[in-house]
């Protein structure tokens, strides 16, 4: 049995970088996610959409290891990561941002991004206390990588600013930078454009596309702005009340009657309300 599933895992490694197979999660009597599957091809942008409470963030939490699914499995490049700790999953190459920005508010932009590289660094307690030598050399090497990301996201002039003092849109961008700093293979973005104005949304969409195309990072995106989702996604997955109800290209999904129903309700449902 183990052998079979292992071989199957190798089989879909060629095209799908991240695979979620029938995961479910319940909190007491509430079903957050029920038997949802997701296939994320390498180098693609996959969007997860759905009404509020559809289970989008719960699904992301299961991928990043923050929730353990009650059933089903999550695999990155054919390797089962379902039961791994969030910190180990980060080290394997999955980074994410949060719906409500979760930056380290007491630290500068630079330190937030350096923390993004935590998993790629090695310095232990002793070499940190001594610092001069190993730890310093490592800090400098990783500082260069971080500066490159600061430049990419046009945050150079803010590097010494504490993140608590930054405007909302900038904080979202810093959070993207922190996720990028870990050199992820797959980037999970939870409403990166939530609460932004049109200009900021366009900037963020541009950055997401650049991250995907120039840096070759696979992106899984939760977003409510349908215009952005339909423009930049290769594939759209629709959730409603914890279940997957549709999957396909943006065009296919938009024409799917089930999706229209989930968003707008049926004639009967409308009459009841």
């Amino acid at each position, binding site marked *: 049995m183990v052998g079979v599933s292992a071989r199957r895992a190798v089989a879909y490694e060629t095209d799908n970088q991240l695979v979620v197979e029938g995961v479910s999660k319940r909190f007491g009597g509430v079903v957050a996610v029920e038997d949802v599957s997701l296939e994320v091809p390498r180098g693609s942008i996959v969007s997860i959409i759905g009404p509020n409470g559809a289970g989008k963030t719960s699904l992301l939490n299961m991928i990043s290891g923050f929730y353990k699914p009650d059933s089903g499995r999550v695999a990155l490049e054919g390797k089962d990561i379902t039961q791994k700790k969030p910190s180990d999953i980060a080290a394997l190459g999955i980074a994410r941002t949060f719906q409500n920005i979760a930056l*380290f508010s007491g*630290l500068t932009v630079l330190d937030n991004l350096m923390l993004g590289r935590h998993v790629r660094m090695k310095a232990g307690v002793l070499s940190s206390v001594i*610092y001069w030598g190993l730890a*310093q050399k490592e800090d400098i090497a990783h500082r260069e990588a971080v*500066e490159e990301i600061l430049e990419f996201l046009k945050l150079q002039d803010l590097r010494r600013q504490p993140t608590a003092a930054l405007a909302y849109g900038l904080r979202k961008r810093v959070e993207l930078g922190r996720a990028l700093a870990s050199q992820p293979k797959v980037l999970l973005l939870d409403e990166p454009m939530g609460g932004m104005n049109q200009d900021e949304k366009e900037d963020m969409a541009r950055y997401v596309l650049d991250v995907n195309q120039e840096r070759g990072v696979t992106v899984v995106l939760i977003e409510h702005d349908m215009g952005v989702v339909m423009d930049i996604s290769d594939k759209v997955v629709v959730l409603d009340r914890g279940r997957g109800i549709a999957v396909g290209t943006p065009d296919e999904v938009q024409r799917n009657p089930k999706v229209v129903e989930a968003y707008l309700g049926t004639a009967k449902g409308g009459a009841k309300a």
Partner: protein
Amino acid sequence: MFHRESGVFKTTYAADMALYPLPIAKWTVAALAVIFVVIVPLTVHEYYLSILNLIFIAIVGALGLNILVGYTGQISLGHGAFMSVGAYTAANLAVKLDLPFWLTLPAGGLMAAAIGVVVGMPSLRIKGLYLAIATLAGQLIIEWTINRVPAISGGAQASIQVDRPSLFGFSFNTQGTLYFFLLFFAVLAIIGTLNLVRSRIGRAFVAVRDQDIAAEIIGIDIYRYKLMAFAISSFYAGVCGVLYTYYFGIANYEQFQLIVSIDYLAMIIIGGLGSVLGSILGAVFVTLLPIVIRILMENVGSLFFTTAEMANVISGLRLGVFGGLIIFFLIVEPEGLNRLWRNIRSYFRVWPFSY
């Protein structure tokens, strides 16, 4: 304070990440070194040297506690007990095995670190006030154990006499020589902490403090880092306890009761949480406060009180002023002395042309 940052352009990351990024800071450090290594020990009276020595020891302990409370955001009411663990470990090794200080000191620190990790384990599940109570239990259990187990405490008095530290036949047996002994370890602790908090580990501690969920998601094993913070912090406390032991020439559990844990918390709250300079200022402040109050009372208080009343008045006043000051700082400047110093400095940064 009277330096200018303009015109200083860093061209390497190493220069940008230096402890003191401004060239003039080298002169400040050099001046401080001359003052503390040459001028102070030559000019200051032995009594005041003994106060400085107490401050040096307190700095080590305050830095350690600040790593845990200020940087990692965990709380401990058990640091007095961790100090006693270090103190009795060193005292026993020094007396029974006749080991020199350069072995007993790290041994005391390591033993305290081990105990600290055990007492810190509840931090994996609980935070804040609950953790405070759990570590308080640790403090009381350790106090009780040391007091009741003669193998540790050395008999009925629960105290062990030790010889003063010596190196290559030279004994640090006066306040003047102990001054250098303790200064060395205080400086070592300061530099070590400065390095720790600017490095990978220190950043991870702050991440655990600010946003533990996000910390986990970006790859920081928060359980590991919480225990690591307890270990490092207790190591400092253990070393602090060993230094007390050598300074007083005796390890005594009464030296490390709950009130000591609270005193040290007061130091870092008054000095400034999450700040190395704050730990130092807090240690200075809390060590000097009772001494200043006593000197003031001895000179002024004799006008109002008889000598017999004085002792009570002084001890009562100390607690009163102490509590009052903590409340004062929490209201006026929650970020402590360190923040006050930074406000003064930033005022003078562009002085006299502040616009």
